[in-house]
């Protein structure tokens, strides 16, 4: 194993090729990975990482399970479903410590909590993004038949025009879309106090989101892959640290990587994403067992309108592991990197019309 | 028809289809138009039917303008292709003009039965046109053209698509029908024997511009009336004489060509 995957192996000659599958188009949500490429962190670890964006219908964990890629970014409840369906995957780093999903309603709608959903038109994107909603509703004693689920498309028009009473929104994306839109009554942009915001992080339905997944069998049998995994995680953490320290640069890097968002929206997204990651008291990427169990609980209780649940039984123990992230964190801490982000301070971002 | 001209404007210039045509058809008379392709036979007929308008001159039918005659349904018409509506049965095809002119259903079916009887297709009333032979289709078209008892029948090469044997049968039938109904007939054809067999007068036309070259009156044997136009006629001497006369009018020769020619036919 002369590739020196564990220690700054640029001098080791050949770089190890690695493919990372994202779960959406390039955007600030993935700024840390792009920063790691741009700043040469992967190269320092002896890796040559190709970041593969996805589109409407690509399921990242399936790309991983099929062997198309080496690592994938995906939400935990979605992958739990895939694991139950036969995929053999392991969560090796829980990048987002918090859920970034909101349910937004109009300030005067009287919908301020999940309990108020009953009988309302509730927006969701589908594609497995809806399990938090059903889990939170289940905790309030509501099932999917008590609301009307409307599939949201790529923007917030359905909500703005009243087709949806409470729309699903990510703090880093759709919520910003609202604040970038002109209120036809005032001619100005909408303001935060125009809306009620329900954060799933504050509900029982909260679930773990962006995590890095690896192939379980390869982790067990392939030593090079294990080493690559630790090296990969080290670079990723450095990337996110960079994004936390330099949100503007990280945002510019992402735009250069092909994100089509305007500069203000991109910066907002990087900043909000940072808030979901930092501070990380156990170290960035560490999987909090309590949060994991809560996610499993929620996934077991959620039932959609077709009567299906993401999972029907507890996931196997192989579904998560802190082994690799711990090694990476240790090595980085030894190098003096702040991996908890204790001093993290978000910035203030002003959104421009249309996010431009 | 007085001094009728017809000029078509095409992309490549004017086409003088008809030039100074004078022609009068008597009631009950059978007149054939014959001439080489493009001499304006069809055009002439279409003017009478008011399907086209003359560029100069007047066309009058029974003392009315052609248009009025069309609106009053003074004539029946048949074309080279039968022009039946393929989605209508034979009976419904014959009934079409009656239907369009609001004849009551009962009267209509009576008339249709009568007409189909006349053309010998009573047994085929419920067939569709594609189940009939070409000759039968043409008979349906003739029945249709007779539906409203027109005093004038216009026929543009109605037997052009038929084989010779069917054609001869249809000719005999047309003679009978025309005699029965007493209608005047204007009949376009390419066939000299056909024109000779059917007509009281044969109008020979020449092309570019379309003109009447000669009008050949038919005097067949002793008896010139229609009743005499039986099958045997075709093998008579007078018939061949008339054929020759029309041939020569058509070929435009003053009949002085040399060569071995049977003197008897002159």
């Amino acid at each position, binding site marked *: 194993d002369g590739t020196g995957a564990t220690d700054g192996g640029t001098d080791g000659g050949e770089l190890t090729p690695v493919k990372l599958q994202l779960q959406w*188009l390039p955007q600030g949500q993935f700024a840390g990975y792009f920063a790691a490429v741009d700043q040469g962190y992967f190269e320092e670890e002896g890796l040559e990482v190709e970041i593969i964006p996805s589109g409407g219908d690509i*399921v990242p964990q*399936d790309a991983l399970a099929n062997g*198309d890629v080496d690592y994938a970014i995906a939400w935990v409840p979605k992958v739990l479903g895939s694991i139950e369906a036969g995929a053999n995957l392991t969560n090796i780093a829980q990048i987002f410590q918090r859920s970034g999903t909101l349910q937004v309603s109009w300030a005067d709608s009287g919908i301020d909590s999940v309990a108020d959903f009953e009988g309302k038109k509730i927006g969701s994107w589908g594609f497995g993004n809806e399990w938090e909603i059903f889990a939170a509703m289940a905790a309030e004693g509501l099932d999917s038949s008590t609301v009307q689920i409307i599939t949201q498309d790529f923007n917030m028009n359905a909500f703005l025009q009243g087709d949806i009473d409470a729309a699903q929104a990510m703090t880093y994306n759709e919520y910003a879309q609202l604040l970038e839109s002109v209120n036809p009554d005032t001619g100005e942009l909408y303001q935060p106090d125009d809306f009620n915001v329900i954060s799933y992080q504050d509900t029982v339905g909260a679930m773990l989101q962006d995590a890095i997944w690896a192939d379980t069998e390869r982790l067990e049998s392939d030593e090079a892959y294990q080493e690559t995994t630790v090296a990969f995680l080290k670079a990723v953490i450095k990337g996110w640290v960079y994004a936390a320290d330099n949100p503007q640069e990280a945002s510019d890097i992402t735009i250069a990587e092909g994100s*089509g968002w305007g500069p203000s*929206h991109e910066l907002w997204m990087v900043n909000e994403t940072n808030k979901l990651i930092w501070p990380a008291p156990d170290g960035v990427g560490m999987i909090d067992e309590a949060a994991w169990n809560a996610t499993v609980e929620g996934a077991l209780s959620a039932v959609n309108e077709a009567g299906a649940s993401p999972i029907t039984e507890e996931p196997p123990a192989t579904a998560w592991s802190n082994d690799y992230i711990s090694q990476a964190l240790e090595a980085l801490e030894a190098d003096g990197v702040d991996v908890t982000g204790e001093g993290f301070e978000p910035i203030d971002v002003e959104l421009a019309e*249309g996010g431009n | 028809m007085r001094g009728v001209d017809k000029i078509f404007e095409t992309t490549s210039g004017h086409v003088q289809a008809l030039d100074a045509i004078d022609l009068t058809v008597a009631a009950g008379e059978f007149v054939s138009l014959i001439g080489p392709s493009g001499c304006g036979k069809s055009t002439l007929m279409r003017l009478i039917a008011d399907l086209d308008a003359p560029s100069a001159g007047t066309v009058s039918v029974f003392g009315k303008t052609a248009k009025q005659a069309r609106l009053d349904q003074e004539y029946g018409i048949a074309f080279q292709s039968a022009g039946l509506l393929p989605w209508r049965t034979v009976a419904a095809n014959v009934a079409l003009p009656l239907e369009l002119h609001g004849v009551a259903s009962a009267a209509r079916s009576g008339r249709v039965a009568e007409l189909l009887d006349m053309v010998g297709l009573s047994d085929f009333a419920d067939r569709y046109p594609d189940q009939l032979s070409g000759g039968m289709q043409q008979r349906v078209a003739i029945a249709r053209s007779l539906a409203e008892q027109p005093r004038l029948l216009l026929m543009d090469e109605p037997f052009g698509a038929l084989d010779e044997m069917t054609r001869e049968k249809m000719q005999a039938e047309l003679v009978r029908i025309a005699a029965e109904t007493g209608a005047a007939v204007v009949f376009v054809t390419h066939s000299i024997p056909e024109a000779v067999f059917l007509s009281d007068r044969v109008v020979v036309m020449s092309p570019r511009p379309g003109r009447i070259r000669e009008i050949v009156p038919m005097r067949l044997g002793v008896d010139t009336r229609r009743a005499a136009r039986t099958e045997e006629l075709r093998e008579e001497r007078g018939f061949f004489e008339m054929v020759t006369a029309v041939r020569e009018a058509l070929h435009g020769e003053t009949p002085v060509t040399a060569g071995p020619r049977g003197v008897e036919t002159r």
Partner: protein
Amino acid sequence: MVWGAVGIVVIALIWEAYKLLGPSDGVVIAGARVLPRTTDLAMPHVWDMVGRLAEPVTRSPSALPLWAVVGLAALTTLGIAAAGWLVGVIVGIGLALVMQRWRIAEWGLLPWIVISQTVPLIAFAPVVKSWGSRVEIGAFEWQDWMSVALIASYLAFFPIAIGALKGLQSPDRIHEELMQTYAAGYWPTLVKLRFPAAVPYLLPALRLGAANAVVGAVVAEVSTGLQGGIGRILIQFAGQASGDPAKAWGPIFGAIVLGLVAAGSVALLGVILKNYRRTEEAA
């Protein structure tokens, strides 16, 4: 041509007139909104949609004007669609040849070819991409755009197969028998008779195939998230439609122009082959 422009202007006028006069929440009859909302969000002004094309995509200093971004993306998609179309042409004509040659093949395959078009291929885009990513033969490595082209070809081959089959079967009996009296075998008959006779059927089929290839390419780009094409900016800008409603129309117009260009280029082919279409005008 002029009338076509008038037609477009009329549509624009109707759009603006309705926007001016129609109720902002649209016309709702028996619970169904039969006429659209007239808000700027739902129906941007024509001049906003056109004007937006001239402005830069974003405020970022390196941003190109919207029209240029749409144009570049359209070119990318055109290339992919063209590849898909070519594959569709080969497969479609190949199938048609087999079906024309053996009637049993026609009976066995034709129903499935018809059924194939009722399969919602959007469901398979990820599968195609995934299977494709495993193809690696020597120096050849499967690229993501090839998956998109493959899906485009799936939509393109259908009209071509049907049209080509009809065309290859179209020669008059008299012409077939003429070839027979010349003791001409299968291939000479194919080259001298069937293919030329098929041209009038093939051309509209190829045109339809081209339009289908573009539609398929765009759908597959959206579905697989392929970078660089019109499908990608379609979802990208649709995501920005709340704050920038006019922007989302850019790629829509781009997709339409793209389809017209694709179909139009095949029409050019028709000009080249005009001698094989002589009966068409007469008919």
